[in-house]
């Protein structure tokens, strides 16, 4: 060693990566921990526990647990069953069914919750009213403002997590594993029970934990359906505290304590998932493959097909149609018939009302900006983590994992703590604070997509460029970036699409002119403007589905 301090491209990249992660992710999270665990500058766990044992906080914790467990159980059963049905049986139209079962992934669950509220709220829900007024039932047949209601709606939107994982495992599984059980004398039922299910169990569990992770930190559905009945979970209580008593010390403290619990729960779930995926992973991937034997459903074929169609009709078509119809009503509560319908609501929202027009442009602008910035930041950080050998990389790896385990409401709260003027910068109530939060929120997506792409780029490719005389920077520009471009494009859309329908983060950060689409729908609903909320939801659905379809097309053409 000559003792000179070398300062070149690697050091700049490393410094940049650390700076991005510290400023956008680490500082907000640390501020939350600090506020949760320190009182008047001193560590005070007793006070934290006191906050947790307050009845409302305690209740929210229990509710989060009840709701997340309920959704995990039902979502896992539904997801596994449908996955088995479309991969292992002779169900008609399996391919189409498989695509349709993934549609809920595209749709924002809070719009679904809004639709179900319009259908099944105890007094004014259309289904309940039909049963009471037309069929003469004394009471509502189902009250959506309940634990059952919330679990039902969340299940509809979260079961694809298990469905995707299990479908993938069943499709990739070596069919001879099942065939060798058949030739051993086992019938198809025994094989499913003793061979198939145990072998895909890691995928089932991993999907189940994903459902749990999302449900635990889920805001929209609980906010739409729970608050009416006094059911708060952790994210909705954080929202309530920040909004109702803005800025008070006690409310910030409760919110930070709840956030801390949420972060640790999320970290625990992710840890368990990694454990299952790495430890229990069986080598069940097929070499040469014949189609696996399809289970003949025989007499059950038509009933199960009808069941699938009914499920899709009930969970996707019905809520979507309801949204569009209610959005076209003159006044909420009127029967849905032609003389009560109008396009004025849609016209008003799109062309006349600043609140909704701003919201649409805000969401598109925020989605675009956050996707672009996060995509480039993601490349830099993943490059340092995956490819570079620099000291202190361990810290970076840890920081890079952080965004995966920090739920949206926690990010939002951390951003409020960090960027409200206490540390020199005040962007509270501006669009910038939402952008900052989105960057932190979606960093995980960018890291995942870019790391995957970078791992495909073998080191020798860069070394060959260096050997040909390229500097580190030139090698990066001419070799690495072109090769990881597909990963970067993927990262962009992985961020842009969910940002379009984001609610959890922006609902904690919006100001008078900085509503997003999600916030607009949510506040319109809160204010009793149900018809406009529905119309706005309809517009949002069109934007979101169009974006999804265009992106899917684009990707298909690219392949």
């Amino acid at each position, binding site marked *: 060693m000559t003792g000179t301090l070398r300062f070149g491209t690697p050091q700049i990249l490393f410094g940049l990566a650390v700076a991005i992660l510290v400023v956008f992710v680490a500082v907000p999270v640390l501020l939350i921990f600090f506020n949760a665990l320190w009182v008047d500058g001193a560590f005070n766990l007793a006070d934290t526990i006191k906050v947790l044992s307050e009845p409302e906080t305690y209740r929210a914790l229990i509710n989060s647990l009840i709701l997340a467990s309920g959704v995990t159980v039902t979502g896992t059963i539904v997801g596994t069953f449908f996955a088995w049905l479309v991969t292992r049986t002779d169900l008609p139209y399996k391919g189409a069914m498989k695509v349709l079962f993934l549609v809920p992934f595209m749709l924002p669950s809070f719009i679904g919750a809004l639709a179900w509220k319009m259908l099944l709220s105890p007094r004014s829900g259309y289904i309940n009213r039909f049963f009471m007024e037309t069929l003469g039932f004394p009471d509502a047949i189902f009250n959506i403002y309940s634990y059952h209601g919330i679990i039902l709606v969340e299940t509809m939107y979260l079961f694809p997590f298990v469905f995707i994982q299990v479908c993938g495992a069943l499709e990739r599984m*070596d069919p*001879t*594993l099942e*065939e*060798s*059980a*058949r*030739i*051993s*004398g*086992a*019938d198809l039922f*025994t094989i499913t029970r*003793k*061979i198939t299910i*145990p*072998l895909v*169990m890691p995928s089932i569990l991993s999907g189940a934990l994903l459902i749990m992770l999302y449900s635990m930190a889920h805001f929209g559905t609980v906010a739409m359906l729970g608050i009416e009945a006094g059911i708060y979970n952790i994210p909705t209580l954080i929202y309530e505290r920040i909004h109702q008593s803005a800025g008070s010390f006690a409310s910030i403290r409760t919110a930070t304590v709840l956030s801390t619990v949420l972060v640790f729960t999320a970290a625990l779930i992710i840890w368990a998932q990694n454990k299952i995926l790495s430890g229990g992973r*069986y*080598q*069940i991937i*097929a*070499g*040469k493959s*014949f189609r696996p*034997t399809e289970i003949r459903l025989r007499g059950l074929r038509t009933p199960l097909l009808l069941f699938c169609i009914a499920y899709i009709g009930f969970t996707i078509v019905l809520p979507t149609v309801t949204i569009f119809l209610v959005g076209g009503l003159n006044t909420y509560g009127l029967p849905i018939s032609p003389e009560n319908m109008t396009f004025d609501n849609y016209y008003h929202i799109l062309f006349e009302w600043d609140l909704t027009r701003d919201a649409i442009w805000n969401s598109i602008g925020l989605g675009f900006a956050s996707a672009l910035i996060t995509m480039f930041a993601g490349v830099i950080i993943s490059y340092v983590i995956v490819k570079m050998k620099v000291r202190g990389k361990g810290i970076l790896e840890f920081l890079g994992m952080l965004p995966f385990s920090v739920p949206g409401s926690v990010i939002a709260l951390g951003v409020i703590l960090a960027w409200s003027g206490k540390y020199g910068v005040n962007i509270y109530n501006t669009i910038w604070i939402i952008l900052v939060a989105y960057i932190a929120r979606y960093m995980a997506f960018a890291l995942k997509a870019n790391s995957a792409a970078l791992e495909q780029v073998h080191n020798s490719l860069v070394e060959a460029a260096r050997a040909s005389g390229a500097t580190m920077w030139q090698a990066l520009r001419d070799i690495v970036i072109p090769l990881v471009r597909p990963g970067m494009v993927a990262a962009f859309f992985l961020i842009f699409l969910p940002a379009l329908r984001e609610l959890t983060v922006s609902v904690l950060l919006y100001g008078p002119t900085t509503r997003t689409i999600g916030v607009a729908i949510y506040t319109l609903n809160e204010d009793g403007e149900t018809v406009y909320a529905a119309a706005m939801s309809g517009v949002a659905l069109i934007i979101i589905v169009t974006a999804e379809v265009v992106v899917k097309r684009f990707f298909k053409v690219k392949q």
Partner: protein
Amino acid sequence: MSYLKLNGIDKRFGNVAAVSGLNLEVAPGECVAMLGPSGCGKTTTLRMVAGFEDIDGGEIVAGEKLLSSKVQNYYLPPEKRDFGMVFQAFAVWPHLSVFENIAFPLRIRKLSGDEIKRRVDEALRYTNLAKFADSRPDDLSGGGKQRIALARALAIRPKVMLLDEPLSSLDPHFREEMRFEIKDIQRRLGFSILYVTHDQSEAMALSDRILVMKKGVVQQVGTPRDVYYRPANRFVFSFIGLSSFLRVRFASGGLYVDELPLPLSAVEAAPDELVGAGDGVLAVRPSDVDFVDEGGLRGVVRRRSYLGEIVDYQIAVGSQMLRVQKTRHETGPQVGETCGLTFAMANWYPLSDIAEA
């Protein structure tokens, strides 16, 4: 006395005939290998015997038991056929111990605990797995996994074993070892084997008879010797062992390769129908060609490669090329030298008999 019978089996995938009119009988204790390039229908045939594919024509019988019949529209599901089967990709269940993998077919048959223990131990001994009974399959190597699969297939003491390229996922040295072990176990237990492979040396080493297939049609069924020395057609000739071909013209003055005269001898005598047609193909094994100083078919050495045990020659005969292999003990001509060629062994095929192997 045959046990397994396949009578006139047809199988179509869409419009493609995967197997056409296949007949085969396997005697008790006999090992028959189905050999052919990929896509020839050999694996499909095995899967029809196992019951994983139905048949579009013919019938399959084992002993007195009808397995599949197109005419009677009868199809016995695989789990009722009582065969042992070993797959190429091992297909051992990673969530069960080695013992439980082997015990699985016995538990399905609801045997008593003692009987299961006895049979599994026996199968473990036969496959040299005794000390791995409690291991997880993923702790064993590829060869170990394939032993588990073999033991599992042996446990029900089947009359017929179906082996689907059981050795092609193994390392070369394991492959040879397992080959002899399978043969040894078969000799001791006396079951029949129907074996699918694309490796001709494996088929030769293991089987009593070989069935060569191409595009769903049986080309030849015979002992390994038959198939090697008396190939039924040019395809079989070129698929088994090394081969080299010369186009030969029959003229009034004798036989010619291009314009070069081909002196006749007894083994080279061409069948009359080819002589009548005016041309044919002379098929030779490179090791069956001898160099002579005087006479013979005249050729020029183009390339001479020393391969250790053998020396490999490329000889230009007119505009055609002939491959010759001699052991390292024989001194042959050098590159550029002219030499005479005689044939210790040769087969004649019509020119229209196009080989594609």
